[in-house]
């Protein structure tokens, strides 16, 4: 089997997987647009494959990766079932995420994301499409993953306010405003102005007991006291900004 034949075989496999998702019943109506986007991406990939030369191995490999990612999105169609989370809360979250993550096309038309809610075994997560987009996508997927076991603990769901900010940071509209205005303001004054001030603040005599314990463990492991790096300080600023964002959206529960 040549690489191009392998690619065609994989295309048929993914197409079959999408067809098989129709066997089940999912969340109310919303899965239709998700399914249609997957179908549209397959159609775009099909057109691209028809243009590939059999000797273009790198391009074949890149298309295989694109198909692989699409297979992941398709598998998530089946993870959105009625009764596994609070739909009123999910609908409200969808409304907020759409307002934050809507994009413009080359023509200037509005392109809303597709917010897909799934139940996962792990923690609260929002997964946005990567900054380097797949060539075949018309609308972006946003996957909101609820921990299934916490279905009835609606107050905990407000953690999504924090997670939504992480997602918005990677957008061309809201992300720019958040970084230019909020992040800049948080680092303009106070302990996070620079690494030295942040380190002094963290090691203060009146720091919480948990912080002192963590710093002591760090010093024991590394043979030197902890000091902020640029990357660490950036991570702190991002988490602090996301906490404030969640606080504004959902109140103290976030």
């Amino acid at each position: 089997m040549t690489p191009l034949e392998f690619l065609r075989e994989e295309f048929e496999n993914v197409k079959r997987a999408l067809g098989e998702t129709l066997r089940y019943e999912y969340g109310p109506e919303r899965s239709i647009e998700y399914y249609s986007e997957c179908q549209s991406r397959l159609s775009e990939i099909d057109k691209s494959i028809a243009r590939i030369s059999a000797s273009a191995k790198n391009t074949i490999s890149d298309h295989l990766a694109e198909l692989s990612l699409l297979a992941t999105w398709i598998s998530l169609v089946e993870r959105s079932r009625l009764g596994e989370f609070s739909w009123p809360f999910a609908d409200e979250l969808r409304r907020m995420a759409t307002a934050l993550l809507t994009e413009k096309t080359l023509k200037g038309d509005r392109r809303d994301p597709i917010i897909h809610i799934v139940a996962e075994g792990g923690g609260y997560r929002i997964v946005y499409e990567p900054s380097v987009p797949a060539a075949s996508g018309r609308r972006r997927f946003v996957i909101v993953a609820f921990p299934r076991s916490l279905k009835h603990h609606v107050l905990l769901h407000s953690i999504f306010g924090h997670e939504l900010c992480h997602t918005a940071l990677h957008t061309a509209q809201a992300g720019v405003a958040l970084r230019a205005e909020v992040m800049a303001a948080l680092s303009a004054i106070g302990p996070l102005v620079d690494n030295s001030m942040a380190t002094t603040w963290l090691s203060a005599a009146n720091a919480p007991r948990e912080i002192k314990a963590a710093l002591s463990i760090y010093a024991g492991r590394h043979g030197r006291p902890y000091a902020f790096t640029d990357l660490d300080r950036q991570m702190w600023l991002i988490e602090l900004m996301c906490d404030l964002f969640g606080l504004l959206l959902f109140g103290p529960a976030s």
Partner: protein
Amino acid sequence: MEGSMPIMAAHSRNDARGAARLLAIAARDSIANPAVAHDREVALNNVYRLLEAFRANAFFDADLSARQSQQGTADTLTLLPPVQRNQGYVRDALDRAIGSAFAGESRDHAIEIVENVLRAVTYPNEFRMPSRVDQRRAAYFFDELLRNLQFS
């Protein structure tokens, strides 16, 4: 189905360089031959998304994302899409391509020129084509981007 191969591992890879190469090829070919651009409208809109993300510095924490992408066992068991790797590589490739094709000009201005060419190529009845000089610079930009994205 009998005789068919199993679907590939869902988490096998998600490399920003490959995605960027497919976009750059679509843009380069469409500028070279605008007659094919309409058929690549979706891909060209994704080139626009990439350029806007770059302009907005959406790759600002690419190094951090790469660090977080080293998933543990629990993460690899989930069906959620894997973190995209090598975004920083693509950001650097875009930076270098702008430096080559638009030496001495601001990043925003360079991206605006490239986007204007893409817009006119994709929707020739709605947008006027920029000058030949700008078309050549946009074409050169994507040639350089592809060259910067080559990997074995």
